[in-house]
């Protein structure tokens, strides 16, 4: 075995061995530490933005809580019934329903202050169809959540309407009413669109008569349950009962909460480039700058950026304008990459005096094509897009997308070619603000599910050059790839 004293002595000597490091090391280290700090903040801001957007979407686009509404509706209905009907107040609406389940469910239910000549909408057997419809319109409460529903009330908001409604009453209406109630059958009519005075108005389907189970009553929206004793007293008080009866199961579906703003997640993958427009491209870049006055031949390699991989992730909000047109906005992170042929890596740092102070760049590269340098671009953007459905089909809707995309380049390591012929990256040379345009086609799949998926090709082009003027390259970032939008209803 060899003597260990050699190792021991060597180890002791090397323990104290030190070697001076150049200042460039700390400069590079400091730059990296600052970059990391900035990146950390960018990440924090990005995710904070995402959280805020998601929270906004949640509160903005969530459906109304049906239980609360139904409870209010139920309570109001009970209150109305107890006020207006000679039913013992100690009994629940269910009891009332059960009680009236026999021959005359609401035989005793006669509006207390029904005016002569007026008739509840529920009692219109034997009328012509148009009359029925008019009554149906008037029978719709016109109040929603304690507030006046201008949509429905529009048909009765003026005296003329009321007269028309009231004018249809007959003297023998009470008898008819009895007959009708005593039949115990549901005669529902679900005319949603009824023409009144030349207007098409949407009307909730009306149960002309019949037994209304408690569940149905509970599910009835307050717009039908709550009646006001004010301006439309005569009509309202008399009709509120009918209103409360006027909602069937179909109506529940019709009144199911609609989410007006959709939320989605976006993924894109494809090919990105930073290409010069054909107008500005310097075609002579790859010329060999020949020996001038017998000087050495200097080969000038062209500065190019070859396309590379790109992807994006983001979240968005979509607001339907009409059945075919949507507008949407959100927050998207883009990663673009390109590659540039470079020569050997320069030793140490490249020092360039910008007129005021020395700036050091490291790493830097000589021109050449012995290696490929990967330029990376990181962007955050707020795309504002419109989509137009170009076909009528509901199975596979196809949309054309068009949008603008203001963004911010949060970081890049892209190298550009200095007049010295060296290639290096300089944070001050990028155009941080980027304005882009985009277009594409999307095909929507799983349309009937809760999470539809839109997939299609997309093209984005940044109108702002990636580098500032004077950097010698007028390239614009662009992206061609596949986009997938995952929609959350």
């Amino acid at each position, binding site marked *: 075995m060899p003597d260990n004293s*050699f190792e021991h002595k060597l180890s002791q000597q*090397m323990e104290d061995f030190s*070697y001076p*490091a150049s200042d460039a090391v700390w400069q590079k280290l*400091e730059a*990296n530490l600052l970059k*990391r700090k900035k990146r950390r903040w960018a990440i924090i801001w990005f995710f904070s933005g995402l959280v805020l957007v998601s929270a906004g979407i949640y509160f903005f686009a969530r459906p109304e809580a049906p239980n609360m509404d139904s409870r209010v509706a139920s309570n109001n209905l009970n209150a109305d019934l107890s006020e207006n009907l000679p039913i013992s107040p100690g009994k629940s609406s269910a009891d009332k329903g059960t009680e009236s389940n026999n021959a005359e469910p609401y035989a005793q239910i006669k509006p207390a202050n029904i005016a002569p000549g007026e008739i509840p909408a529920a009692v219109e057997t034997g009328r012509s169809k148009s009359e029925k419809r008019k009554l149906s319109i008037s029978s719709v409460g016109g109040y929603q959540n304690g507030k006046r529903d201008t949509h429905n009330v529009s048909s009765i908001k003026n005296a003329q309407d009321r007269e028309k409604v009231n004018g249809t009453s007959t003297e023998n209406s009470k008898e008819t009413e009895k007959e009708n109630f005593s039949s115990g059958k549901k005669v529902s009519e679900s005319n949603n669109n009824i023409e009144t005075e030349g207007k098409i108005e949407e009307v909730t389907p009306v149960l002309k008569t019949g037994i209304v189970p408690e569940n149905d009553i509970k599910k009835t929206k307050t717009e039908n349950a709550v009646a006001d004793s004010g301006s439309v007293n005569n009509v309202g008080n008399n009709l509120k009962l009918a209103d409360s009866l006027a909602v069937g199961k179909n109506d529940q579906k019709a009144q199911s909460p609609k989410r007006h703003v959709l939320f989605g997640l976006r993924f894109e993958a494809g090919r990105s480039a930073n290409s010069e427009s054909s107008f500005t491209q310097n075609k002579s870049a790859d010329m060999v700058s020949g020996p001038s006055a017998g000087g050495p031949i200097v080969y000038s390699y062209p500065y190019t950026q070859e396309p590379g991989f790109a992807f994006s992730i983001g979240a968005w909000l979509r607001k339907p304008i009409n059945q075919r047109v949507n507008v949407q906005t959100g927050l998207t992170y883009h990663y673009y990459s390109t590659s540039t042929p470079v020569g050997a890596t320069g*030793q140490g740092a490249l020092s360039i005096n910008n007129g005021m102070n020395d700036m050091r760049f490291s790493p830097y590269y000589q021109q050449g094509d012995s290696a490929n340098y990967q330029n990376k671009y990181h962007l955050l953007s707020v795309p504002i897009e419109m989509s137009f459905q170009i076909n009528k089909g509901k199975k596979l809707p196809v949309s054309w997308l068009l949008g603008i995309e203001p963004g911010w380049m949060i970081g890049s390591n892209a190298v550009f070619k200095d007049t010295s012929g060296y290639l290096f990256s300089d944070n001050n040379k990028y155009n941080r603000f980027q304005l882009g345009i985009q277009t594409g086609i999307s095909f929507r799949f799983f349309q009937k599910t809760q999470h539809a998926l839109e997939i299609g090709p997309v093209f984005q082009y940044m109108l702002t050059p990636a580098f500032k003027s004077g950097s010698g390259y007028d390239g614009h970032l662009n992206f061609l790839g596949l986009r997938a939008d995952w929609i959350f209803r």
Partner: protein
Amino acid sequence: MTDQKQIIKDCLRGDITAQRKLYEAFAESMMGVCYRYTKSVQDAEDVLQEGFMRVFTHLKQYRGDGELGGWIRRIMVNTSINYLKKNIHYRNEMVFSEPSLHPVIEETPEHALQAKDIANLIRQLPTGYQTVFNLHAIEGYSHVEIGKILGISENTSRSQYMRARNLLCDWIKRWDEINKSENYAR
């Protein structure tokens, strides 16, 4: 000691001044470590920079139960090994031949070489030898540990080490001759 704790605290807060202080306190000695593992000063500086980035990133993992210098040194050694593995020039040179019979020099050469001279001699060794020698003779890793770090067998590590040691002893013995001949040449 209290100062060091304060500096660490400030570094954890991301204070760039404190980070500079920490760097300046250890830069030269750690550069010595990196210098031994690489073939050029530029590479050593790259490793040093990368190593300090890791130090600042993982400083929260330093529990304070050992010497901070030792902890940073371990990071530098690991960074150096990773650098050698990643860098194509070193990777191509780090060829570990199968263990074979090798002459063992029993004697320990007496020398009056400076640390820098020895470091320079170590750097003259083939990369594989250099790495194994640094890890075993100076850092004190066992051959089993070296085998795990470099992905080689224990015997290969032992064999590489003995070859490196023999070469180094030979060079140290001939140091005076070499020096004299170099002086003569000048």
